[in-house]
């Protein structure tokens, strides 16, 4: 077992995954949340989130994990992360109130010499605004990706640390914990670190928005974006890992929050954010790709159609439906019959008046006029298009993320549509 005790306050997605992964690195970990019921559920190993390997690591590291709702248990921590998920509203604005309240609580409960680290994403200026005389406060950029949270927490590419004074060395206990992850540590001033996180997301949005813009053009002129992508990846200036897969706009909420933050700061300080507004507009436009095609091929032609929709989560390997393109689509289909299937999300989350849950993908297809694959769960790629064709009443398949094989679907007689190819 490794030296210092590490604390994590806020047992939602970020805090829970980070705490469990710290235990996996060999540290004793105190997982604190003010909610006694949430802690009780965690003690029963009922996790509020779905992430690959997370359940396994909780069991594996049970001896090093202490779940508690008692502030007193924080006093033994040398390093204390404050890591609740920060809620955003429909406009991408963060509600920082709960984070600040938890930070206050941690300041009060922690030892005077404890290192307190804000891990939740905050806008520039937040950390310095919450600095206290004589206390050691840092901001660390979180790297959580829904569906890859464990992998990212265990093997970060680098750690970005916001400091009151980056010229000063990091406290030993904090440095030792960071070094256990075997990646470069980049100390910088608070504001730079806070903006660094946003900067990373801005570049991802720029790539995705460019891909989405060109994918739509491909659909209009008979090109195929999937043929272009390999050429782009071989360009060193773009790279193998660039975000080039087209999607249904920007989903999930975190990227939208950063876009809203940049626009707000730019407007306040008089810098240009026109391109950011364009990304948002493009995201809204592309989100409705499935609705437009559905209208063109089904809704304007078939009376009282039945629609089979696979996937409700906002992306694969997650339970989260926040800003889910699937739910956004369903919100505009209330007058139609829909059959829903998702491996994790229950149909009731769709809040659709004519929805019927299905026990399997193929059951959802039974007698439907169209199949729409709205979340790219890997298991959907194992579906046999011939079976889909035999179950459907119609022939239209909308598969934005190309989970199914284009050629196999067409060979099965299906009218197959995906992002980035002629529709």
């Amino acid at each position, binding site marked *: 077992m490794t030296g210092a005790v590490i604390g994590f306050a806020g047992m939602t997605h970020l805090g829970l995954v980070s705490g469990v992964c710290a235990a996996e690195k060999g540290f004793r970990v105190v997982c604190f949340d003010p909610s006694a019921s949430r802690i009780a559920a965690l003690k029963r190993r009922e996790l509020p989130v779905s992430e690959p390997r997370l359940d396994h690591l909780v069991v594996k590291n049970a001896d090093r994990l202490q779940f508690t709702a008692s502030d007193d248990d924080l006093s033994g921590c040398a390093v204390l992360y404050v890591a609740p998920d920060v809620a955003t509203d429909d406009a991408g604005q963060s509600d920082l109130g709960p984070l600040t309240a938890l930070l206050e609580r941690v300041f009060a409960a922690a030892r005077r010499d404890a290192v307190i680290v804000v891990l939740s994403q905050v806008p520039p200026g937040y950390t310095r605004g919450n600095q206290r005389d004589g206390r050691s406060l840092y901001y660390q950029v979180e790297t959580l990706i829904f569906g890859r949270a464990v992998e990212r927490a265990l093997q970060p590419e680098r750690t970005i640390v916001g400091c009151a004074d980056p010229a000063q060395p990091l406290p030993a206990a904090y440095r030792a914990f960071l070094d256990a992850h075997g990646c470069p540590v980049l100390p910088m001033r608070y504001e730079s670190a806070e903006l660094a996180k946003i900067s990373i997301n801005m570049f991802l949005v720029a790539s995705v928005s460019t891909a989405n813009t060109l994918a739509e053009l491909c659909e209009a002129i008979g090109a195929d974006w999937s043929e272009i992508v390999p050429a782009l990846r071989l360009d060193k200036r773009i790279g193998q890992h660039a975000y080039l897969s087209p999607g249904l706009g920007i989903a999930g909420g975190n990227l939208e929050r950063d876009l809203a933050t940049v626009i707000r700061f730019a407007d306040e300080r008089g810098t240009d954010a026109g391109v950011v507004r364009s990304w948002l*507009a493009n995201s*809204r*436009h592309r989100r*409705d790709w499935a*609705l*437009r095609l559905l*209208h063109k091929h089904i*809704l*304007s*032609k078939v009376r009282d159609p039945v629609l089979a929709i696979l996937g409700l989560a906002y992306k694969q390997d997650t339970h989260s439906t926040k800003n889910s393109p699937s739910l956004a689509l369903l919100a*505009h*289909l209330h*007058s*139609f019959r829909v059959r829903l299937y998702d491996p994790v999300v229950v149909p009731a989350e769709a809040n659709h008046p004519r929805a019927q849950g299905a026990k399997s993908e193929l059951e959802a297809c039974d007698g439907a006029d169209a199949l729409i694959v709205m979340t790219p769960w890997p298991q959907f790629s194992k579906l046999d298009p011939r079976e889909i064709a035999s179950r459907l009443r119609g022939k239209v398949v909308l598969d934005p993320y190309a989970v199914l094989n284009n050629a196999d679907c067409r060979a099965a007689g299906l009218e197959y549509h995906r992002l980035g190819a002629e529709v």
Partner: protein
Amino acid sequence: MIAHGFAEPRQPARVVLLGSRGFVGAAIARRLITESVNHIGIGSSEVDLSDASAVAKLTGILKPTDAVVMLSALTPDKGRDAATLMKNLAMMQHLCRALETTGCAHLVYFSSDAVYSFASGLVSEDTAPAPQDLYGMMHLARETMARSLPKTAVLILRPTGIYGAGDTHNAYGPNRFRRTAEKEGKIQLFGAGEETRDHIQVDDVAAITARCLMHRSGGTLNLASGRSLPFHRVAEIIAKEFPRAIEIVRAPRANPITHRHYDVTKLMKAFPDIRLTMLDEAR
């Protein structure tokens, strides 16, 4: 986005069509008859909206439970100058003054795609209006006057070029093409007719308007088919409607080539089962 005041359609107490004898007004009146909607039509011969006396006349006619559809406007073929602008604004001013007295349950204002510029080839309701002439500016000002009415559900409809039987205008597009094809056996294009435009059939405009009236919809909605075609393609489609050969001729282009497409997603969201007539399907 438009929001429906009534999730399920309801018959309006009464619809008052201002400009009921025009091309669009007549189509809406026909549709309202089909839908058994109680309505009255008022043309310029009954009430001259440009005259101040219209305020008193309208106050005597309108009821607080009415749905009012404002179609009256002096179109560009009647003048593009400042005097026409002021006359159009006076018409709306007189209507608004009357409505300030009587109130109404629902005001549907027929604006125009002229409120948009050609800076972007794709237009949606989110596109910022930037009128390029006095006609577009007039509609934008009248939209603002309509929205300023207190306690009134206001719907702004911005149609693209409307085509169909009975058109009284002679704007460049399907109606003029059909007219000249019939009379002269030819269709004249500017340049090679490369510009793309969206055209919506008048009966579709009437059907959407009727649905908006029955849902008491508020907000702003573009009226377009969602499929834009170059003018040369429009000319070919029109030419095929005639049994004799129609000559398509080119005239020197006066203006640079511009394109306009409509993202009609908000129309689909408002009425997911809507079926629109595409120009190449129309008869």
